[in-house]
């Protein structure tokens, strides 16, 4: 019955050196020991209670023993570890606490414990007029079951609470009653109109030295600023339904299409089907873009409905989830982008608070390492649209969040310069930078262009890794487009302002663009001729994708429709083996035809070249070798140009304007971006062009100095307003290759702009 066993009594007796204790004595003593223990515990509990504790401590036990005139137990004070009981050997139910031997030195040399913090008092409002404010000093109030269930009731309750608060003096509850400073409390209560209460509180605060219970005026006031009230978001039933609908419809979006496409792909293993495979990529692209009527309706709703603001947190989360969960499913990603786009276009939606949530998924869409089911699928479009979206967001919210654009562009640039990132990420970064605007491109991208291209070169020139090369080409194309667009903008702008003499293009381009045309000096001419001789032998027939040209596309479609069999055969043969000598010959032919403007076949040839270029095949270029080789002669050419400066200036005038049209034809003929072709075409008018170049670079200022600078230095300065455009164009052409020139404004456009 009793807790203390006789064996324990015996053990205790042994511990105090009573060796002989009979069993009877132990039995008789055990209950008494228990009784004494209970007495001590009872007294200890009294001490604990009067110390307002609900936990018994060793100090209480010692106090209780002292109360009974028993020597307290030493060594247990301040010992917070729970005692470890050890079973005594030889006894089944005797336990004891093993005392560790503590060397005295260890105690004396132990560092002093840290001084405890001072006990101090912190006042706050526990409740005000019976209503507990939701401050951080107060315990969180357990909420009634989800208010969304009964939105009406919740609203009514809130209204009632607000009313009660208003009644309770100064709308204290309604304003969520922060531990207001004395002054605030005074005002509130005075406003509440309960004269007596107000006076009471106010005078009370006054009596407390303006600080007593009211948390010390200023102190509490500053507290109140920091207090963030918990936001309770009540979503009505209808809105919840709508949200569900949106999610469901957008989610099942590509369902049927995917199922159709999935049949041929990976066996429809994934819900989203397989939009992979180079062959199926176009189909995938098609089905990505297909929207069911419901989806369209939903997107339109999101674009117009003012109620979307309420759903914004959920939609934001939806977008994030879609992107994180659907990296392998292009349609989902596209849909997510569309959602963001729709929200962005909705005039009544305030996206600002959610920007920080929306941006990361967008950048992911832009720069992720791998998007879509396989690397071969068309994720480029997704990246482009994501980049556009990012740019839109940046431009829309650039005003309130001035650092947004900076941050985004910094991130993009970092990704671009990070050599460890895959080329797909680089593409996204370039696209993003390009989308951010020409100024950004000029400021950030152009200075990095030269070193980056140097790094990219091996990938471009690589022969075996088809995919990598393809990606590199893509990146190159993107760079080209970005730089071209940026310069185009600049040039057109300058031309429109009349700052840029129109003849610059006529004059400057031939001088700067192609080494062959700088051939007013014989040695360089010879060398470039030589290079051109080598050109057909150059293994690489791949070209960067040309800028979209709807006109040429239309022509090509016509050609296909008409079923020009021979032409298609040629086309296919070139496609089949672009590097074979026959293909090269065909290409040369095509190019030649394309350049002859007068002939009817000209447009067809152009279209064909364009289509070839779209597939990455083109007349052999020399970008792999040309720039390094061309650099020294170009410098010389520039110097020569500078020398003829004065002469050219004398006869600039009307002559320049007259020549523009001829030169323009030549460049228009070279629209497909075939550098070599253009070189040939330009060579006829090279003489006059070369002479005119002097005035161009002269008017650009800098003359010889500008010419002597390296492309890199020029590009680094290119963002400046006063940068010499001619030089920049030259440098870009140098770095990117002659394909760049295709991106510039064509001379026929310029006079129009000038007029």
């Amino acid at each position, binding site marked *: *019955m*009793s807790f203390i066993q006789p064996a324990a009594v015996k053990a205790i007796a042994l511990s105090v050196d009573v060796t002989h204790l009979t069993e009877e004595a132990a039995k008789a003593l055990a*209950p008494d020991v228990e009784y004494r223990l*209970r007495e001590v515990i*009872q007294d200890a*509990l*009294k*001490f*604990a*209670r*009067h*110390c*307002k*504790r*609900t*936990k*018994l401590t060793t100090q209480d036990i010692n*106090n209780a023993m002292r*109360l009974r005139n028993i020597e307290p137990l030493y060594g247990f004070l301040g010992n917070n570890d729970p005692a470890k009981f050890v079973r005594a050997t030889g006894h089944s139910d005797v336990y004891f606490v093993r005392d560790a031997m503590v060397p005295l030195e260890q105690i004396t040399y132990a560092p002093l414990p840290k*001084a*405890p*913090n*001072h*006990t*101090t*008092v*912190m*006042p*706050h*409002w*526990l*409740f005000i*007029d*019976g209503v*507990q404010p939701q401050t*951080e*000093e*107060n*315990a969180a109030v357990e909420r009634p079951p989800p208010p969304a269930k009964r939105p009406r009731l919740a609203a009514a309750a809130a209204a009632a609470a607000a009313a009660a608060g208003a009644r309770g003096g100064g709308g204290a509850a309604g304003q969520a009653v922060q531990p207001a400073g004395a002054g605030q409390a005074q005002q509130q209560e005075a406003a509440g109109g309960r004269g*007596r209460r107000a*006076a*009471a*509180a106010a*005078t*009370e605060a006054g*009596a*407390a*030295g*303006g*600080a*007593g*219970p009211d*948390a*010390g*005026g*200023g*102190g*509490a006031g*500053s507290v109140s600023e*920091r207090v963030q009230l918990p936001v309770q978001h009540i979503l009505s039933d209808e809105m919840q339904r709508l949200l569900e609908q949106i999610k469901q419809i957008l989610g099942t979006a590509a369902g049927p299409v995917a199922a159709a496409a999935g049949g041929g792909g990976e066996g429809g293993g994934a819900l989203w089907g397989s939009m992979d495979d180079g062959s199926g990529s176009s189909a995938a692209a098609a089905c990505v873009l297909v929207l069911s009527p419901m989806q369209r309706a939903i997107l339109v709703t999101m674009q117009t409905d003012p109620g979307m603001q309420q759903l914004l947190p959920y939609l934001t989360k939806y977008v994030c989830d879609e992107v994180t969960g659907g990296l392998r499913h292009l349609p989902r990603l596209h849909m997510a982008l569309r959602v963001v786009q729709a929200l962005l276009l909705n005039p009544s939606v305030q996206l600002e608070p959610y920007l920080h949530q929306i941006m990361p998924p967008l950048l992911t869409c832009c720069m992720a390492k791998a998007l879509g089911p396989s690397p071969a699928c068309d994720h480029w479009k997704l990246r482009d649209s994501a980049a556009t979206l990012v740019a839109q967001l940046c431009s829309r919210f650039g005003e309130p969040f001035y650092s947004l654009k900076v941050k985004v562009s910094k991130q993009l640039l970092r990704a671009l310069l990070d050599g460890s990132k895959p080329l797909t990420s680089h593409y996204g970064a370039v696209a993003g930078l390009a989308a951010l605007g020409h100024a950004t491109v000029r400021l950030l991208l152009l200075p990095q262009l030269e070193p980056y291209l140097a790094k990219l070169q091996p990938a471009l020139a690589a022969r075996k890794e088809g995919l990598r090369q393809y990606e590199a080409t893509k990146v190159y194309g993107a760079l080209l487009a970005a730089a071209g667009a940026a310069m185009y903008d600049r040039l057109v702008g300058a031309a429109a302002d009349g700052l840029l003499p129109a003849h610059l293009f006529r004059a400057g381009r031939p001088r700067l663009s192609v080494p062959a045309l700088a051939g007013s000096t014989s040695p360089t001419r010879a060398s470039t001729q030589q290079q051109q001789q080598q050109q057909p032998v150059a293994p690489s027939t791949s070209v960067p994708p040309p800028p979209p040209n709807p006109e040429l596309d239309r022509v090509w479609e016509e050609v296909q429709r008409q079923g020009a069999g021979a032409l298609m055969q040629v086309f296919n043969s070139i496609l089949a083996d672009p590097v074979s000598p026959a293909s090269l010959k065909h290409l040369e032919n095509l190019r030649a035809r394309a350049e002859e403007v007068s002939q009817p076949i000209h447009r067809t040839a152009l279209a064909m070249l364009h289509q070839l270029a779209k597939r990455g095949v083109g007349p052999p270029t020399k970008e792999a070798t040309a720039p390094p080789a061309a650099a020294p002669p170009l410098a010389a050419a520039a110097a020569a140009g500078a020398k003829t400066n004065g002469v050219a200036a004398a006869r600039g005038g009307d002559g320049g304007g007259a020549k523009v049209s001829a030169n323009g034809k030549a460049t228009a003929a070279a629209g497909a971006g075939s550098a070599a072709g253009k070189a040939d075409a330009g060579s006829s008018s090279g003489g006059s062009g070369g002479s005119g170049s002097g005035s161009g670079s002269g008017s650009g200022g800098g003359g010889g100095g500008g010419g002597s600078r390296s492309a890199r230095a020029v590009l680094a300065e290119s963002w400046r307003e006063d940068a010499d455009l001619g030089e920049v164009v030259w440098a870009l052409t140098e770095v990117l290759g002659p394909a760049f020139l295709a991106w510039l404004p064509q001379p026929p456009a310029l006079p129009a702009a000038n007029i």
Partner: protein
Amino acid sequence: MRDADWDQLFLQFVRKRGLRDVETAFARYVRTQPQEPEDSMAVSQQAEVQQSLIEELATFAAENDAGVYTDTYESLATWVDNSLDMYRPELRKLLHPVFVRCYLQLVEQDATAAAAALLARYRSRVLSSQGGLRRSTAGDLQQLAAITSRQLLRSSPWAAQLATSPRTPVVLSPYAHDLLMRFLHNGGGRMLPLLAVVNSHIDLQVLEGLPKGAVAAAAAAEEEAEEADGGWGADEPMADSGPAPPDAATAVLVNRTEVKLGLLQGNIEDLYREQQEKQRAEAATTAVAGGAAGEGAGAAGQPPGGAAADGQEPPTKKAKKAAEKAAAAAAAAAAAATRPGAVRGERIEHPPFLPRLPDELVAAGLRDIAARAAVSAACPPSCAFFTFVNAKQTLTCCAFNRDGSRIVAGFTDSSVRLYDMPTISAHHAQLRRFRPRSGVAAANGGAATQDGGGGGDDDDETEPPGTSHLCGHTAAVHAVDMSVDQRLVLSGSSDGTVRLWGAEFGSCLAVYPGHMFPVWDVACCPVGHWFASSGADRVARLWVSERTAPLRLLVGHGADVDLVRWHPNCSLLATGSADRTVRLWDVREGKCVRYLSGGLYGSPTAMALSPDGLHLAAGTDEGQVAVWDLGTARRLAASPPAASHAGPVWSLCYSQGDGTLLASGGADETVRLWRNDLAEAAAGLGDGGAGGGGPSSPAAAAASKPGSGAATGEGAAGGKGQGEAQGQGQGGEGAGKGPGGRGGSGGPYGVVGRYRTKSSPVVALQFSARNLLLAAGPFHRRGPITTAGAPPAG
């Protein structure tokens, strides 16, 4: 010794006791006993074994047993009184049946004198320990007193019925049963008669479980039932069971003592009310005068604007007369109307031994009353909570001054600390300004400072300003209080002393070494330099601050006196004890005048008296809050277990003024508000009397109505409660005359609000003079305790 000798001895004994039935039965047995062959070995063994028993029997037989019964009964009673607190209530249940049997035995033995002495002693013991006789006990005692001789015993039908009745059931928990058995067996031969009584007449039912559980509940239920069917025996002195002995009707019942619960004459509330009346009367006079003047002027055909506006124009004689008349009538009406409302409850004369309040305190009090917020269930108060951070479970007690700008706290490290809140708040604000980050931490209610260890806002070594340490005690301080003028601080400590500190000087002014054991509580008298203390020596003491010896010793509690509180009229003192009783003592005579115990689960840990002096609320260590009406000594309400605190109730207090709210705070980290409907009803009654009782003209009553509503702070609620107040509130008013309104248990004190703190048990609660609720507690980083975690009743 042979069996035959045994038999002879036993027969002799039985014959002597007069147990004829046993004798005949045993004689038959003796005859039929087969004679065993004599075996010397066996005999010697037997003899050895039985030796002690024989001796006992012999002594038992030889003695004339009168003394044995009284002695053993006394020792049993003493033993019960000194047993473990936890089991004492159960064991006490044993005393009465055992006493009855012992008394009857004594009468049976013709030891009349001894029996009478036993009866007298028992009665006094019951009175002192239980405050009175329950009806059943009183009935038993009455019957017993009538049986004074063996003849009477034989002829008494009551005794015969008792003899045939089944054994009295007494429920004990296992350990209590163990204790009892050990006590009875270890007592040796002397205890045998008692053992025999217990064995033969008492049915000990041992129930598993802790005593506070089922058993206590059963006991409480039993008590409640008893209370319900008649309550204290002498309320209706035994009309059904013959004439009551005179002493039973008069001296027996502590709770029938006449006690004056009224407030002191000339207390601040009354002063304020008088002031208001005077002002109101003046206002009414001027208003009526003005009105009459205007009337008169109008009647006289003069432009009314001029006369009413400035009164510069000399009114006509007629108008003047009319105004005077009206003013006199209004004043009379106002006086008649407000007087009954003003003196709600009786007032007692200011006793000569009590000092008067200094004038400046009265003035301050009046100001406070004027600025006091009216709180009630409909209009709950605000609460400022003072969190002690870094207290590390050392905070034991706390007290506020009347506006909460100063806080006194006692700690287990034997220090008393005085916190000046304006200074501290300014310091915190400064810290926040210079170190915004730590300011955030500081504002986190101490959470961050507690978490951060050294990272708090006090990592510099200098003591933050605004704190003064009062050092002098040598053990944990368990109670602090502030004197009425806020200049003195009292503290009681485990070292057995009470110390008086000057709050201004920060030093100890006096030491009162009276208690032998720890002092659990101290309380300052609301009017002056008196104070009371109570402690583990089961005695409460009454002191006057200029003497180091106590004036009165209030003796009677059966366990530690945990609480002591002053009645608002300062001539009564309430104590709460671990023997689960609350008593009210008369200060002048030092004797107990009220004994309240019914249905208290656990021992009281907090206590408060209502400002009107009629109610006493006590909170127990099991979370219950119970309220008694002091006049009738009846329990008005007890919180149902569902609404009770989940841990011990550490603090209780009534709102200032009418006491319409009761606030309680406990270890479960909540502050709860309870409505005191009776006070509201009483207030309503006062207003009702003002409105309807006065023989005044309706117009005058209407004129005085808004004023009176504002004065009592009741307004519409008071007016509404008027109807029922007539019926129900009368009881509270009657000061022990009527049975009082017992409208459903727990009804009067309903829960108004429940507010959780952030991990801070509420150690102290106090309504400031202007009815702002001040609460304090240490921040402990742990979850709220549950009922399972609460300590068992001590």
